[in-house]
């Protein structure tokens, strides 16, 4: 997570009792209990052990049930492993390697990458490596799958896990053969001694390796020996997905499961006054109606309160909700409306804020300048809108423990939240992680899991809590609406000599602390402090903005609005100077240099700036490549088309887009998009391409449709007719180049997003001559 240091966690999320280990065992009921390892399933009355998922045969045939189990996402039981040198890897007597994936799979491709890293370091055949999904447990380290952190933080950890196993297998073989370990190698799923032409498979060595002491600092395999890393590896869950066997959170089933849906107050911190559930209880299938406790400030990851309808199927729960008559007290945020709020933010960004970066003397340069140019930018509130709505299944048992199954980006935080809000110890809470049908930041907050646990406790049965699409749209942790004003002093050559960036948006930290009333440093680091231009006088100011809805992380976070404004301003300056965008941007970024000193050893993304400095040469390189791929400068385009450029550094990676736009009939469209990414060392080439493609579409959606509004504290939009996504017929051809690099891995899931909108707007600017300063982008 970004800038965690500046986020104040409420006491409920700081559980001093948190300690390692001890996942509460799954309990078997009378029903068929199935061990969901991909390799086996067993029928038994009771089954103890961490991570046993209880799946029901309720309502489906035996064949369907066993099929469901075989294909269900496996959790970390791995009971046949004889050799477990790490929490991340194990090997059984047959040589089957399993990898425990502790990171959430939400489409970014970790499950198509984690085994790649470990297999290469180990010398395993990729086809003999299976995966299991870790339950929430601190023994795996950080499980918060956001901030594009997985490869940045786990590449070396996973290599260490693989190397440890490899060295121990080699030692076991060397001891067996009476040869020096240094003469042995591990590849093709076996250890080899060339001199004596002997080989032994991993399976036959596993038991012996398990008796050895793990090496303290196993060497990494040289890059030249990598067999899979950097290649295109097939998606691990492909077959399950296209046959309907992949199990997302929404697909969890078990005996005696009840289905719940919650009617929540329309405003944050709204309170339940009274409700009449007589009609709801009359809906066939409804079994109970439960009032949830009102939300408390700060809201953190707590539930929003409201009334839960519990039924024998999801539809009955939805129908029951419609039949509720509820009286709310709208509370402290009821006066919040987007129209007036926008004016407030724009006024805030027009005055001095708290100075967060001050190089040279921007104020003096601006006051002494003969040519001052400024522009104000507006990016509305957005929501992540994963295709799979928030949902969770929880089972509060008679012994006071609770077991949860959820599509969560952060199983440890979910466990803390459920324990904290239900007054349990963490040892009493188990969180199993399913596949996520998209996350984009939304599923890093456990409010929907807390709800499920509260409802299960109230009704004494396992409960699946399903949000409606309308709930997902209205009750998110939203991407903050923002007003920004960038003021420049422009020299006679058209280049800026001063840059003052004022940015006003409600902070994510506001969900944790009531006294946070302006953007925090960790949020300014996302695209504002990282302005890469060669300007002598630079000042960045954080301007006041009160939060009236829940604010949260959304794919690329502050880079969404900062990347837009910083790149759009560059486009406007180029236009004003009558210069070509590519040539101007290159000059604006300036000489090759290291911008890291602004941040020290750790940047805004907690990236390692010692091993991988923030390097303007890499930034310019991706811009040049994207422009070349697009035929920038060569193509003779119709007068209503142009190729717009933008380039941005985020999450340790560098991305540029060159987007050919067309303006006609008062609207715009994208004809073609060419991207380039330098993410350092990459693991699964195909997933990097996929993330770039997906980020382009995500940005295109925001550029065309991205706007949520609020009236009287409640979000106005609800479903895909008023919060739209780009569709296939709006999708251009998307082409991506990956820069070959041996630098440490950068992020991949998010960095492709920030330059999308400004590349589009910089293209439109060239066609129309009019600046684009607002999202959604309109012409005419």
């Amino acid at each position: 997570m970004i800038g965690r240091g500046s986020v104040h966690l409420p006491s409920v999320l700081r559980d001093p009792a948190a300690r390692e280990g001890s996942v509460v065992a799954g309990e078997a009921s009378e029903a068929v209990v199935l061990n969901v390892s991909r390799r086996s399933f067993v029928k038994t009355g009771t089954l103890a052990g961490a991570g046993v998922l209880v799946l029901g045969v309720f309502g489906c045939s035996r064949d369907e049930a066993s099929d469901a189990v075989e294909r269900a996402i496996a959790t970390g039981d791995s009971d046949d492993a004889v050799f477990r040198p790490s929490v991340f890897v194990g090997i059984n007597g047959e040589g089957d390697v399993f990898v425990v994936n502790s990171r959430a799979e939400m489409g970014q491709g970790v499950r198509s990458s984690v085994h790649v890293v470990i297999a290469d370091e180990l010398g395993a055949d990729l086809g003999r490596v299976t995966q299991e999904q870790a339950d929430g447990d601190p023994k795996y380290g950080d499980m918060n799958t956001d901030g594009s952190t997985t490869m940045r933080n786990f590449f070396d950890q996973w290599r260490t896990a693989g190397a440890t196993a490899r060295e121990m297998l080699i030692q076991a073989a060397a001891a067996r053969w009476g040869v020096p370990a240094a003469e042995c190698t591990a590849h093709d799923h076996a250890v080899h001694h060339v001199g004596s032409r002997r080989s032994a498979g991993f399976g036959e060595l596993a038991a012996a390796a398990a008796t050895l002491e793990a090496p303290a600092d196993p060497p990494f395999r040289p890059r030249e020996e990598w067999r899979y890393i950097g290649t295109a590896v097939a998606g691990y869950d492909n077959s399950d997905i296209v046959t309907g066997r992949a199990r997302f959170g929404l697909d969890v089933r078990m005996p005696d499961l009840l289905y719940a849906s919650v009617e929540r107050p329309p405003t944050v911190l709204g309170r339940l006054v009274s409700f009449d559930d007589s009609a709801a209880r009359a809906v066939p299938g409804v079994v109970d109606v439960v009032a949830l406790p009102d939300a408390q400030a700060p809201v953190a990851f707590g539930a929003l309160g409201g009334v839960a309808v519990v039924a024998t199927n999801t539809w009955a729960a939805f129908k029951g909700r419609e039949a509720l008559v509820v009286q709310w007290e709208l509370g402290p945020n009821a006066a919040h409306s987007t129209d007036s709020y926008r004016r407030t933010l724009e006024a805030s960004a027009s005055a001095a804020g708290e100075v967060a970066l001050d190089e040279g003397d921007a104020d003096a340069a601006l006051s002494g300048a003969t040519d001052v140019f400024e522009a104000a930018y507006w990016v509305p509130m957005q929501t992540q809108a994963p295709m799979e709505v928030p949902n969770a299944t929880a089972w509060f048992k008679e012994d006071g423990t609770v077991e949860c199954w959820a599509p969560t980006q952060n199983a440890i935080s979910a466990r803390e939240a459920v324990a904290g809000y239900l007054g349990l110890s963490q040892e009493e809470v188990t969180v199993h992680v399913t596949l996520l049908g998209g996350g984009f930041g939304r599923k890093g907050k456990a409010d929907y899991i807390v709800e499920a646990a509260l409802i299960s406790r109230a009704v004494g049965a396992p409960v699946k809590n399903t949000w409606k699409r309308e709930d997902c749209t209205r009750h998110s942790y939203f991407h903050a609406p923002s007003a920004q004003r960038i003021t420049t002093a422009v020299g006679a050559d058209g280049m800026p000599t001063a840059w003052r960036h004022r940015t006003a948006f409600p902070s994510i930290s506001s969900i944790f602390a009531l006294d946070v009333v302006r953007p925090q440093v960790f949020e300014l680091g996302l695209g504002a402090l990282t302005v890469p231009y060669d300007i002598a006088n630079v000042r960045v100011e954080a301007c006041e903005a009160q939060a009236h809805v829940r604010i949260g992380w959304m794919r690329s976070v502050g880079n969404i609005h900062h990347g837009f404004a910083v790149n759009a301003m560059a486009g406007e300056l180029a236009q004003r100077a009558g210069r070509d965008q590519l040539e101007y941007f290159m000059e604006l970024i300036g000489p090759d240099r290291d911008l890291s000193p602004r941040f020290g050893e750790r940047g805004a993304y907690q990236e390692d700036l010692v091993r991988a400095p923030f390097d303007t040469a890499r930034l310019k390189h991706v811009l040049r490549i994207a422009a070349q791929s697009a035929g920038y400068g060569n193509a003779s385009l119709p007068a209503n088309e142009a190729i717009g450029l933008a380039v941005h550094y985020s999450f340790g990676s560098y991305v540029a887009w060159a987007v050919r736009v067309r303006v006609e009939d008062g609207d715009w469209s994208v004809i073609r998009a060419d991207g380039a990414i330098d993410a350092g060392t990459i693991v699964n080439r195909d997933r990097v391409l996929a993330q770039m493609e997906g980020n382009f579409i995500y940005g295109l959606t925001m550029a065309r449709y991205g706007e949520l509004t609020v009236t009287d504290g409640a979000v106005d939009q609800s479903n895909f007719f008023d919060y739209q996504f780009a569709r296939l017929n709006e999708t251009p051809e998307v082409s991506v180049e990956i820069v070959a690099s041996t630098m440490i891995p950068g992020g991949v899931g998010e960095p492709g997003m920030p330059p999308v909108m400004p590349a589009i707007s910089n293209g439109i600017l060239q066609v129309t001559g009019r600046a684009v300063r607002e999202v959604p982008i309109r012409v005419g």
Partner: protein
Amino acid sequence: MESYTLRVNDQVHDVEAAPDTPLLWVLRDLIGLTGTKYGCGVGLCRSCTVLVDGSAVPSCQQPVSTVGTRSVTTIEGLSESGDHPLQELWNELNVSQCGFCQAGQIMTAAGWLSENPAPSDEDIDRFQSVNLCRCGTYPRIREAIRTAARRMQGADR
């Protein structure tokens, strides 16, 4: 609650449900076929697409009382062993990211391809744009359908 006998993937299922219960929730909650996904509940994302007598329909908009004796095919029943040309191409091109919408994407394509076996690129855009994907897998969906159509016609073997 009423009793209904449904024919799903060539198996007969007896279910008890309120007449207005969408086929989606009957499949998912009562029969246990969870490959068909809920995305919006109003027919705008088509994650819930199934074939009813061979035609693609959003199952969230199909009350169980209106299904009758018609044959329902879900993603689980599209092919014997996951080898429908669309499924093969989805795998070969690594179309899926999170994967949540992909069953609906495939069922939509299977539905209209059966009536338009040689689609133009414009046809693909027109017929497939009823389905939403938040991950942005559209470029690969387009290519997968294009190639699968050729393969189904025997031109790409």
